C-alpha cells in the first residue's frame, strides 16, 4: 500500500504549474481524497452497520442457549419453528400479497397522476400539488381511528384489502411527485415527434416515454413495496385474525411475548429482511440515478 502511494505521490513534485496543459486530469482532484481518508471512516461506519446484521444472523443460526460468537454448529431449528409454529409462512404470503398489490396500485395511479402533473396545465393543478405536499405531513398513525371506522363501514376489517388501500394511499403523494419529476426529464419534443408520426397520445406515451421512465418506475415501485412490507401499524389495527397478519405484526408479537425467544425473533427478523434485501440489491443502481434524475426537489 505504501508502495502504491509512493508511486502515486511521486509525479506530483515533477508536475508543472497547475495550468500546465500536459496535466489536464489532475492526480488528486477533489473527488480523490487520500486513501485513508476514505477507508478509515468508511470502515468504522461499516462496522457499525454490519454488527447488528451479524448479530441477528448469529442468533438465528446458533442453537438456543449458546453464547458462541460464531454460528457453529449451525442449526435451522429457529427457522423451522418460526415458519411453522409461529405461522411466519402465512405471514410471509400475506406480506407478499400486500407488497405486490401496493406496488402495482401505487405505480399505476401515480403514473397517471404524475403524467397529468408533468405535461398539462389545468385549473386545479396548484391546489392539487399543494394537497399532495400537505398530505406528506398527515401521519398515517394519527388517522388510525377514522380509517378503522371507514374500513369497518366498507366491511373490509380483517381483509388484506384494507391494508393494501391504506398503504397505497399513503405512498401516493411522494410517488406522484417523483414520477412527475421523472416525466419532466423526458423531453416533450420526443412525444410530439411521435404524434407527428401518427401515434396517438397513449401509444406515444407507451413507446416513447415509458421505456425512458423505467429507472424511475423501478425506484418508485420498490419504494412502495419496501414501505408496505415494513409498515406495521395499519396491519396491526385493521387485521385481527392471525391468518391475515403480516410479518411486522408477527415480529412484534415475538418481541412482546412474555419470555422472548431470541432465536425465534432472530429467525423471524431474517425472514422479514430477505425480500427487502433482495429488492434493494437489485435496485441499488437505479435508486441513486433515479433519485438524482427525479431529484425530490419540486
Amino acid at each position, binding site marked *: 500500500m505504501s508502495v502504491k502511494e509512493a508511486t502515486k505521490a511521486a509525479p506530483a513534485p515533477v508536475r508543472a504549474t497547475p495550468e500546465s496543459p500536459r496535466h489536464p486530469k489532475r492526480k488528486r482532484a477533489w473527488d480523490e481524497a487520500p486513501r485513508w481518508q476514505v477507508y478509515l471512516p468508511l470502515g468504522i461506519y461499516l462496522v457499525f452497520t454490519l454488527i447488528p446484521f451479524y*448479530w441477528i444472523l448469529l442468533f438465528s443460526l446458533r442453537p438456543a442457549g449458546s453464547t458462541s*460468537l460464531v454460528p457453529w454448529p449451525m442449526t435451522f431449528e429457529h427457522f423451522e419453528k418460526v415458519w411453522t409454529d409461529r405461522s411466519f409462512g402465512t405471514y410471509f404470503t400475506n406480506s407478499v400479497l400486500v407488497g405486490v398489490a401496493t406496488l402495482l396500485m401505487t405505480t399505476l395511479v401515480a403514473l397517471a397522476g404524475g403524467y397529468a402533473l408533468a405535461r398539462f396545465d389545468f385549473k386545479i393543478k396548484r391546489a392539487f400539488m399543494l394537497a399532495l405536499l400537505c398530505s406528506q405531513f398527515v401521519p398515517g398513525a394519527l388517522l388510525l381511528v377514522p380509517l378503522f371506522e371507514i374500513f369497518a363501514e366498507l366491511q373490509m376489517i380483517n381483509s388484506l384489502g384494507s391494508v393494501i388501500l391504506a398503504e397505497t394511499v399513503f405512498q401516493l403523494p411522494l410517488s406522484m411527485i417523483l414520477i412527475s419529476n421523472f416525466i419532466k426529464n423526458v423531453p416533450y419534443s420526443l412525444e410530439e415527434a411521435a404524434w407527428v408520426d401518427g401515434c396517438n397520445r397513449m401509444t406515444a406515451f407507451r413507446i416513447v416515454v415509458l421505456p425512458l421512465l423505467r429507472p424511475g418506475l423501478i425506484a418508485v415501485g420498490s419504494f412502495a413495496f419496501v414501505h408496505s412490507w415494513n409498515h406495521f401499524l395499519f396491519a396491526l389495527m385493521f387485521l385481527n385474525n392471525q391468518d391475515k397478519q403480516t410479518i411486522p405484526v408477527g415480529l412484534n408479537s415475538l418481541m412482546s411475548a412474555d419470555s422472548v425467544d*431470541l432465536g425465534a425473533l432472530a429467525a423471524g427478523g431474517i425472514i422479514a429482511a430477505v425480500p427487502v434485501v433482495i429488492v434493494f440489491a437489485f435496485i441499488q443502481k437505479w435508486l441513486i440515478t433515479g433519485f438524482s434524475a427525479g431529484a425530490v426537489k419540486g
Partner: protein
Amino acid sequence: MAQAAAVAKPPAPPRRRRASATPRRLPYLLIAPAALLMLGFIAYPVISVFYYSLQNYNPTKPWRNGYAGFDNFVHAFTKDPIFWDTLVFSAKWVVVEVGLQLLFGLALALIVNQTFVGRGLGRALVFSPWAVSGVLTSAIWVLLYNSQTGITRYLADLGIGSYGTSWLSDTSTVFPAAVVADLWRGVPFFAILILADLQSVSKDLYEAAEVDGASRIKQFWHITLPHLKDAIILSTLLRAVWEFNNVDLLYTLTGGGPAGETTTLPLYIANTSVDAHNFGYASALTTVAFVILLFCSMVYLRLSKFGGDNK
C-alpha cells in the same frame, strides 16, 4: 362582415398541435383515481378526526359517548402531565435524531462519493439498513441490547459496563440506546438523498477552484454546501416530520417505556387509541399534533418554495 373577412383571409391556421392533442378533460381523468383515493382515505379521515376530537368516543364504554365540547383539549392541556412529557420528548427526539442523521449522513455521502476500489459494494453495504425498517430494526436492537446475551455481555467481558444491564429498561440509558438504533437506519436515508444531489455538482467548478488554489475545505464550504442546500432543507424537513410521526420503532423497541421515558406524542396517541380505545381523546391529541405539523409544513413551504415555478 365576419364571413367576408373569413373568406378574404387564408383559412385560419390549424390549431396548435399540442392543443388538439390535449383534450381538456384528460388531465382531470388522469388525476381522478389519485384524487379520489386521497379524498376518501386522507381528507375525510382528517376531517373526522376534528369531529371526534369534540366527542367522548370510546367503543368499549358506549354509555359515555356524546358531544364533549373542548373537554378533551382542556384535559390534555391542564390535567394530563403525560401529554406535556410526550411533547418535550417528541421535540428532543426529533432534534437529536435529525441533527445527528444529517451530520453523519452528509459525511457518509461525501465519503462514498469519492472514487475508490470497492465503491459499489461499500455503498450497498452502508446503505443496506435503509431498506430495513421499523419493527425489524427494533428486533435487531432488542437482540443487541438483551441483558443476558446482548452486546453488553461481551462488552462487560472487555471491562466496559457490567453484566445483566439492559440499556432499554434503564431510564438513564434508554434514550441514547433508542437514538443509536434509529440512527442505524436513518443515516443511510440522508446519505442516499445527499449523494444523489452530490452527483449533479459540476466537476468543472472544483477544477476551477483548484486552479485558483482553494483548499478542499474551502471548496466544500463554497461549492458543495451551497449546491446541497435545497436537498438538505428538503430531506431535513421531510425527515423531521417522519421522525415525529413514525411510531413503528419506538412502539416495538421500548413501547414508550421505561416509565414513559420514550413516549412521543404520536406514540401516546397510538397507545390511547389502539390499546385504550379512547378514540375521542386520541383524536384531540391528534388535532394538537396536526397543528404542530401544519406549522412545520408552513416553514417548509417557505424555505423550499415548493410548487413555485413548475414548468
